[in-house]
């Protein structure tokens, strides 16, 4: 029968047709037509055209069209006697099949036969296919054939057998042993292709098995000899690449030497000379030479080389940094990054070149230069390095800013030459890259500022001035708000020593803070900070009425938004820094929350909500609440609170005060009751009485059982109204059941810290 037009199409005719398609849809239509024709041809079991039809199918597969219906046809081609058929058949098998399909097992017999074929190119096809996609079963079945071919004198087959063996070993590691005898004289080969793949095979075996590694260590002298011959031999046209004899083989050998020399003194010593020779004699004007040098450097750094050799290696990397070729600079920086810890001093010598790479246009090079620069910062070069890094921070792409800012903070913390320099550096980062600093930077910085007591006036002044310029960068605004809240008194009294003190009034400060509250640039967290700052200033400023007004207007909204965002923050899965309850960030935000909550104490009609069952929308919607007292949840939160600046104060053997602060005329105190005896205290009730000038309100305690042996505590929050600012004294009565008997304990507590009532 006359074959249909399509099935006899040459591959090139199909390609030409498809290329005339003007749209994707047109192309799809052509392909579908062609596939239909090919399918029917396959069904007719037409041997003549099977080959070219599979070729067409592979072309269409490359374009993304399904071709699985050709899988079996590939197998038929493989089984054919014609080399042409086998060539396409094996290619098709490699492109369309994989071991997940049962069909592939049908190849096993064909491959076995072809491995023993009289034509080496057929054997080559079989080795190639087995080495690409052979499944474990196939490898097990045919490993013996591969091993035989590994010993042949036919170099074309021998080199393929070596790589095929690598695949077999990867699939079936237990078979590694069987290839050991064949490796005996692999390195005596003259053919470079065989040498190359043999080294690959040896490398694979050494990497997989410590025993093999030990066994092959004795090959080091032979490898060194081969390498030496490559370097010393004159021009050899057969292997020459840009004036270097077989650079690919040199690189392979160097890599194997690296593996053999690692953690072995004797092997490392045996290769010392050749490494030095390669390092000094290799021509560097071409990429192939640099590839060899690069591999040499990596080997020197990885084995137990003597220090002179290591310095030589690092100097090579230093020279690479000055190379015009970006690729060379890239690999140099990558390698230096790996060695900066172990050979720090040697790398330091190239510091200025590394810093210059910060200005490179290539993003990958810039990133490595930045990482390396931070690794090289120390007490001696901090000022100079920081100048460069801050300049980099100013001008770099946004993708770098967060990491760079973190790096600057870390370096400054470790090596700051003075407190003033430290604060200035922080200011610089906050003002230039303020929106990119990490969430946890804010509490860390605040901690730092708090601890630099003599810099408080200077810091608050600088931060205040920064706020006047720009309120869009949230971390900056948050840190500034905090400082103004803490040190606002220093600000208005103009006490700055480090620079010219500015004149600013209480009203101006409050204007700025209020501005933050209303600005739509401020996030809820920022608003929480600024409101907290305003509240704190009530004890430092005299414009109390103004503050009261602000608080009453914004208080509950702030609290709601703040706790919302806080909750969202703690429910995030990606922020590992933030979520740890011991982290400064967590404790810190609770502190602010605490402030905001406390203002609710001021509104009498809201007082009950924390102690009783009244449903109040504000708290209910923002905090997770248990069906029982809503106060309990909040108490858990508040009970966690123990900022480093307020340490636990023991009031009596049982009781300790963990937190207190004063807001307007009231003080909120958190007391913990603990039990060191070996029995629980149940039905625990806390009662307190205070002198007449005070008023007292007790929230519901967190529970009525104090576990034995310090396994837990009961938290009791007390609000004390102290209009006359007298020293707080309290009589405390504790009633509980202990070992079955009721107990009553009376205590007089007079050692409240001054800040709890002043």
């Amino acid at each position, binding site marked *: 029968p006359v074959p249909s037009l399509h099935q006899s199409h040459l591959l090139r005719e199909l390609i030409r047709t498809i290329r005339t398609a003007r749209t994707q849809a047109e192309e799809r239509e052509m392909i579908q037509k062609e596939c239909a024709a090919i399918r029917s041809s396959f069904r007719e079991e037409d041997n003549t055209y099977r080959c070219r039809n599979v070729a067409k199918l592979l072309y269409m597969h490359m374009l993304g069209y*399904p071709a699985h219906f050709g899988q079996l046809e590939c197998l038929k081609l493989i089984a054919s006697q014609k080399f042409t058929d086998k060539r396409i058949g094996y290619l098709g098998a490699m492109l369309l099949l994989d071991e997940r399909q049962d069909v592939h097992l049908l190849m096993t017999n064909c491959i076995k036969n072809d491995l023993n074929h009289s034509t080496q190119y057929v054997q080559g096809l079989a080795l190639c296919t087995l080495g690409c996609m052979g499944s474990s079963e196939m490898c097990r079945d045919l490993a013996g054939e591969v091993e035989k071919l590994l010993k042949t004198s036919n170099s074309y087959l021998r080199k393929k057998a070596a790589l095929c063996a690598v695949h077999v070993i990867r699939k079936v590691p237990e078979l590694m042993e069987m290839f050991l005898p064949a490796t005996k004289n692999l390195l005596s080969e003259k053919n470079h292709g065989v040498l190359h793949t043999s080294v690959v095979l040896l490398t694979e075996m050494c990497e997989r098995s410590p025993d093999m590694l030990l066994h092959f260590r004795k090959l080091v002298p032979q490898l060194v000899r081969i390498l030496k011959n490559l370097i010393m031999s004159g021009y050899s046209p057969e292997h020459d690449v840009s004036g270097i004899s077989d650079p690919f083989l040199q690189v392979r050998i160097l890599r194997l030497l690296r593996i053999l020399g690692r953690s072995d003194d004797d092997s490392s010593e045996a290769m010392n000379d050749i490494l030095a020779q390669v390092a000094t004699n290799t021509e560097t004007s071409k990429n192939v030479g640099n590839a060899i040098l690069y591999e040499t450097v990596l080997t020197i750094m990885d084995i137990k080389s003597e220090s002179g050799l290591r310095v030589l290696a690092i100097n090579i990397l230093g020279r690479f940094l000055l190379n015009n070729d970006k690729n060379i600079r890239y690999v140099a920086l990558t390698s230096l990054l790996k060695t900066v810890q172990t050979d720090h001093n040697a790398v330091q010598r190239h510091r200025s070149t590394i810093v210059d790479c910060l200005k490179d246009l290539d993003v990958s090079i810039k990133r490595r230069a930045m990482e390396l620069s931070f690794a090289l910062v120390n007490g001696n070069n901090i000022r100079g390095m920081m100048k460069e890094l801050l300049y980099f921070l100013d001008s770099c792409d946004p993708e770098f800013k967060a990491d760079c800012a973190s790096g600057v903070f870390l370096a400054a913390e470790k090596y700051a030459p003075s407190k003033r320099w430290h604060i200035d550096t922080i200011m610089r980062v906050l003002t230039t890259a303020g929106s990119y600093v990490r969430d946890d930077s804010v509490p860390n910085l605040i901690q730092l500022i708090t601890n630099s007591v003599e810099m408080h006036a200077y810091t608050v002044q600088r931060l205040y001035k920064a706020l006047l310029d720009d309120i869009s960068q949230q971390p900056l605004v948050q840190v500034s708000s905090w400082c103004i809240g803490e040190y606002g008194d220093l600000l208005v009294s103009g006490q700055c020593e480090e620079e010219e003190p500015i004149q600013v009034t209480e009203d101006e400060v409050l204007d700025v803070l209020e501005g933050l509250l209303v600005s739509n640039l401020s996030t809820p967290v920022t608003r929480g900070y600024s409101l907290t700052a305003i509240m704190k200033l009530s004890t430092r400023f005299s414009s109390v009425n103004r503050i009261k007004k602000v608080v009453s207007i914004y208080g509950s909204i702030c609290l709601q938004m703040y706790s919302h965002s806080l909750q969202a923050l703690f429910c995030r899965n990606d922020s590992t820094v933030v979520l740890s309850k011991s982290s400064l960030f967590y404790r810190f935000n609770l502190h602010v929350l605490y402030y905001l909550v406390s203002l609710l104490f001021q509104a009498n009609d809201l007082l009950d909500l924390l102690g009783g069952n009244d449903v109040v929308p504000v708290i209910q919607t923002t905090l997770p609440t248990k069906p029982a007292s809503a106060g309990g949840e909040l108490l858990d939160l508040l009970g966690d609170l123990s900022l480093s600046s307020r340490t636990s104060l023991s009031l009596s053997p049982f009781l300790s005060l963990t937190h207190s602060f004063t807001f307007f005329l009231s003080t909120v105190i958190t007391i913990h009751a603990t039990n060191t005896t070996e029995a629980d205290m149940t039905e625990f009730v806390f009662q307190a009485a205070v002198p007449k000038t005070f008023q007292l309100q007790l929230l519901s305690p967190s529970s009525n059982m104090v576990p034995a042996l310090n396994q837990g505590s009961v938290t009791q929050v007390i609000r004390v109204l102290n209009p006359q600012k007298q020293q707080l004294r309290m009589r405390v009565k504790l009633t509980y059941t202990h070992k079955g008997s009721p107990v009553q304990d009376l205590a007089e507590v007079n050692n409240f810290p001054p800040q709890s009532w002043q």
Partner: protein
Amino acid sequence: MIKAILIFNNHGKPRLIRFYEYFAEDVQQQIIRETFHLVSKRDDNVCNFLEGGSLIGGSDYKLIYRHYATLYFVFCVDSSESELGILDLIQVFVETLDKCFENVCELDLIFHMDKVHFILQEVVMGGMVLETNMNEIVGQVELQNRMEKSEGGFSAAPARAVSAVKNINLPEMPRNINIGDINIKVPSLSPF
């Protein structure tokens, strides 16, 4: 290990695709698209190494590429390969193609995808470098082609096919698409 070798043109049309690790068909096409996207937006004066690309190999995975006029040659490798070495290997492959096709151009790759695969098979096998000596590779390919020819082949000898193709009137195809003089386009390597 070389995980994949991709050749596509400036518009992302694939000219040769070879994966040495199993990927489902649709993932393969995704990888091609993603790789093209990453590589095509690179400036000419940045380095030839790219990290990123999430589909192959996770984090131990780099793209090493060379751009010759209308074609990108991209090798996707893991950390066991030397970056500079792979650059040289790409050069070897391209110059081998040049020798096999006599001043290779994109058209040759388009119409002889199978032959390009056969040549590649003599350079890289199972994701590992097999042979780097150009003359060896070309010689072995030649011998195999002769075997095919003597059997009648399935679509005439390559040399004839190439000239036949070059003579076909393809009105919508600009006639001057080619890789260009390789020696000139690759400034850091000297002519062989």
